[in-house]
């Protein structure tokens, strides 16, 4: 069931493609805003599995706060995560899935021959 939902999401992603993430890219493509890779790494380190990372990210984006931020202390001080732009739930979910799929560790491992 989960896999089917995931597949549907991925299909939607293929068509909607970067349109969802473009809103985020407005900031996240440029310094000093952290890259998705960096953000993903921080979340991965604490939450391990895809599902948990997704839940945590969505949790933050729906109600940004200092406590929920997983970034380094220095960044928190400088960039004020509690002031993060709030988006509608659908956008958040799609964007988060996009990030997670793009940064998926399993896909990034080089196949061993």
């Amino acid at each position: 069931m989960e896999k089917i939902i995931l597949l549907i999401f991925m299909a939607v992603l293929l068509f909607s493609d970067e349109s969802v993430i473009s809103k985020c890219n407005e900031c996240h493509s440029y310094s000093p805003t952290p890259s998705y890779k960096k953000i993903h790494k921080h979340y991965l380190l604490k939450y391990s599995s895809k599902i948990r990372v997704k839940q945590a990210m969505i949790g933050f984006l729906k109600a940004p706060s200092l406590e929920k931020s997983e970034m380094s202390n220095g960044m928190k001080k400088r960039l004020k995560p509690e002031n993060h732009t709030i988006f509608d739930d659908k956008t958040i979910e799609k964007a988060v899935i996009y990030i997670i799929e793009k940064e998926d560790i399993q896909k990034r491992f080089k196949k061993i021959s």
Partner: protein
Amino acid sequence: MFASEKSSLYRFLLIYIGSSLFLVAIGLVIFFNYEKHRLIDFQNSLIKVQSAVLVSELRELHKSKEHEIIYPKHSEFSSAIYDIDKNYIFGDFHPNSPSLDKEFYQKNNILFYVQKIYPYYLGTAYIIVQKSLDDKPIISVKTRLIIGFVIVIFFITLIAYWLGKLFLSPMRNSITLLDNFIKDTTHELNTPVSTILTNAELLKDFYPELENSKELGRIESASKRLSRIYDDLAYLHLNHKRHYNIEQVDISEFLKKRIDYFKTIAKAKQIQLTYNIDESVLLNIDKEDITRIVDNLLGNALKYTLPNGKVELVLTNEYLSIKDNGIGIDKAVKDEVFQRFTRANKSEGGFGLGLSIVVDIVKYYNFDIELQSQVKKGTKVSILWKK
């Protein structure tokens, strides 16, 4: 070595060697298991170190800015990583149904080590390391133990044999003493008995008026009995070294002569000795053996029949039977007598000795023996030739 001595020695060796080997084997098995666990523990600690190396490699990979990640491969072991929800992430092997909750486990000859890590570098919550067990040291321990065991067997057997001999030597001495005593006695008995017998017969020849003398008859019958006891003893004693001289014997003729011999005894006891002998019954047998059979059976019949009784002998081509109307054998004792047949209990005088000899001979020639008896009515013993 005597038969009884041999069997005692074997029994002693069996119990002694068996029990000591059992104890030694238990000790060796415990030691082997201990040693095996020690060796496996050692290999497990090696895996632990290798797993720690893997963790630091994962940490470095996590920090790396490269998009593509190359899984750290090692030649000495295989590994795989799992996320916190126990989903397989990656690895250079893909275990089927791994148990991530046990730290160490072993399947067939493969050791597994599961390490939980935090923080989750690359999302890794569990590392599972697989390494084939190096069983060479275990096999070498095993072979050394087996060699040791064989050496121990050898020494225990040696000691047991020596101990057995030591313990048996008093028994052997007394048996030898007894044996020699019987041998000497038997030997010493022969000459006087035959002297008495010949002279009693000579007396009758010289003085015909003594032909019917009761006193002389008793002397004759008593010395004949003595002479038969001598024959039995000599037979038993020399049996194992004797040479069988099997020839065709006319049992009918032979029996008639033997009956003549027993007539004096029957007469002295006033027993009516009748016989019914088929002509020319031929058997292939050692004369000595048929003598022992007939002498013992007839002797017993006469011995256990009261004065004025009857003893009847029948010989046909099928069997020889000797029937008396003597005291008979009790049913309970009858079994014992048969037991004695098979046990050939030589310690019993008279009956036991004679019948055991008969049974030995019957067995040797593959004859059959039958015993019918009723208390106070009499006994009938039959030997079936089974030709």
